[in-house]
């Protein structure tokens, strides 16, 4: 097997709230291989976006920090790099697209300018050459009349078009890794499918690794090879997508799958997981999902379950599912 492009090992991210330290992500380990899409799935507030910002080192340094672990890109630990060195990685080696295409582009500059500035910066080409590359890129993301689009402003574009532009910006320097943070959440369902198809084909074309962050298991099923399910800052289950869909092990994953209206077969009322995600900073001695879990036992409340590896691609953080109960 090829070597992983990105190895995240035991990553811990803390939020600093008025001198109290609130763990937002704990002990997260992920390996990502070229040409592969992995999904990071979980409810709002489970630490998905924090993880992605940590990889980019874009966490607000005033109230968040990486407290432990490493993020290795081709063997180089990103957590140890200076801000200047990180600037050479961002946009060139690792790119990111965000949830909100409506607000993610600068309203006062043309698409052309926003596209070319990264190209000029990272590829050291002239503005003219950058424009050629940019037009090429816009064509790749299926934007009609790219020459005219270069002179347009973001407000003149629809949400789907803006997200295509965001993808074009992100991919303009052939990054090794693309982090897509809920790239389709704000879009219409039809546009969603187009954007996902586009990401799929560009991933194959450019042989990059994609980290897809989403709460939508439907989207994950569409394009991911492996899935990491996160809950309250921890990975609770990892699996190849088919295994996860056919045989979810962790009660939380089961709950998530049951929450998909298409899959729910329990009656007229849609399923929901009782309760809510514990607030970050809540002191929990045992399993973080215990309060919402229908299988919860005394043991689950006594000590936190470890992430147990079941086979090469499968691990689960649950006493019951891992058979250690």
């Amino acid at each position, binding site marked *: 097997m090829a070597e992983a492009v990105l190895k995240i090992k035991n990553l811990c991210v803390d939020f600093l709230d008025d001198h109290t330290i609130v763990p937002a992500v704990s002990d997260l380990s992920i390996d990502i291989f070229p040409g592969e899409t992995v999904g990071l799935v979980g409810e709002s507030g489970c630490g998905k976006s924090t993880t992605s910002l940590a990889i*980019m080192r*874009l966490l607000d340094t*005033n109230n968040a920090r990486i407290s432990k672990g490493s993020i290795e890109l081709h063997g180089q630990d990103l957590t140890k790099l200076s*801000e*200047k060195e990180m*600037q*050479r*990685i*961002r*946009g*060139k080696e690792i*790119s*990111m697209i*965000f949830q*909100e295409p*409506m*607000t*993610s*582009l*600068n*309203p*006062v*500059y*043309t698409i052309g300018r926003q596209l070319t*500035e*990264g190209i000029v*910066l*990272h590829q050291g080409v002239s503005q003219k050459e950058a424009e050629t590359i940019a037009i090429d890129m816009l064509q790749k993301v299926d934007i009609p009349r790219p020459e005219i689009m270069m002179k347009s*402003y*973001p*407000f*003149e574009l629809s949400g789907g078009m803006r997200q295509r532009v*965001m993808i074009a*910006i*992100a991919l303009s320097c052939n990054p090794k890794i693309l982090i897509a943070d809920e790239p389709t959440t704000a879009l219409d369902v039809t546009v969603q499918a187009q954007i996902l198809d586009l990401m799929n084909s560009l991933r194959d074309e450019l042989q990059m690794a994609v980290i897809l962050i989403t709460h939508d298991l439907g989207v994950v099923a569409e394009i991911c090879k492996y899935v990491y399910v996160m809950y309250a800052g921890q990975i609770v289950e990892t699996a190849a997508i088919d295994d996860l869909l056919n045989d979810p092990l962790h009660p939380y994953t089961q709950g998530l799958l049951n929450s998909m209206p298409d899959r729910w077969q329990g009656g007229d009322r849609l399923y929901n997981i009782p309760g809510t995600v514990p607030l970050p900073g809540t002191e929990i001695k045992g399993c973080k999902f215990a309060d919402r879990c229908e299988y919860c036992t005394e043991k689950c409340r006594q000590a936190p379950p470890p992430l147990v590896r079941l086979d090469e691609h499968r691990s689960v953080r649950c006493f019951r599912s891992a058979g250690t109960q």
Partner: protein
Amino acid sequence: MRVIIKRIASAIPVLALVSIMVFLMLQLLPGDPATVILGEEATPEAVEAMREHLGLNKPLIVQYFDWITKVLQGNLGESLVDGTSVNQLIMERLPATIELALGSFLVALLIALPCGILSAARPNTFADHLCSFISMIGMSIPHFWLGMMCIIVFAVELGVLPASGYVPFFDDPAENLKSIILPVVATGFRESAILMRMIRSSMLEVLQSDYIRTAKAKGLSEMTVLFGHALKNAMIPVITTSGIMLAGLLGGLVITESIFNIPGYGKLVIDSVFNRDFITVQSAILVSAVFVVFINIAVDLLYAFVDPRIRLGKEGNS
């Protein structure tokens, strides 16, 4: 181009309204200009004759149209005090005030822009607290007091700058600069305080936005993000404040002009009010109103220049 014509057209009713209000307001002031001209001891007959001569006995509406017709022809009337042309009075006083206003504005920008941007880029650091402190001082010190302190330190103690007076620029540029440094700094410092807070909060808000995160994710340096991406967006609300400020400066430098004994526009208006020189006051206020209106038009045009959503005549939905 259409925007400019539209804005100028919409300014006409505003100015007409201002002219009527100024005219009526001065009618409410106690005191009779005829008595002012002739003195307290004048006979009732002489006063009556003077009133007739000045046209004060005509109906208000006729008086208004007499005045406004002349104004539209470019004649602002004659001073009631000594008969000099108001045009000439204004032209004499205006350069000093314009120079002071623009100078103060420039000083305000020079202090506020770097400090505001710095505090927003490094919130809650020593630099930010220092800038906030400076701005607090600027806001809380009365600028006449600061003006007097400047005079005491730089003119009286150090003797490096003149304490008061004004030398027109074309008479002696070097002396002119010397004569306006103190008033301009005293006024500009105060104005910078408000502007600095404004720039800071506007920058802070912009720096939180999604497109700044996008810019950082592209690998742009902090400087490019700050000045290339954030500043232009943050300037949109600041332009409004600056416009109001500049307009205010043009009309409201009376105190500075009094302290530094500069024969400016504000002093002209105040002196004329005390002299019951109605014609000068109403014409001078009308001219200020024209300035304010034109600065506002300039602000609107600047908006369009900065923000393509306005320039292209559409409201962005982001």
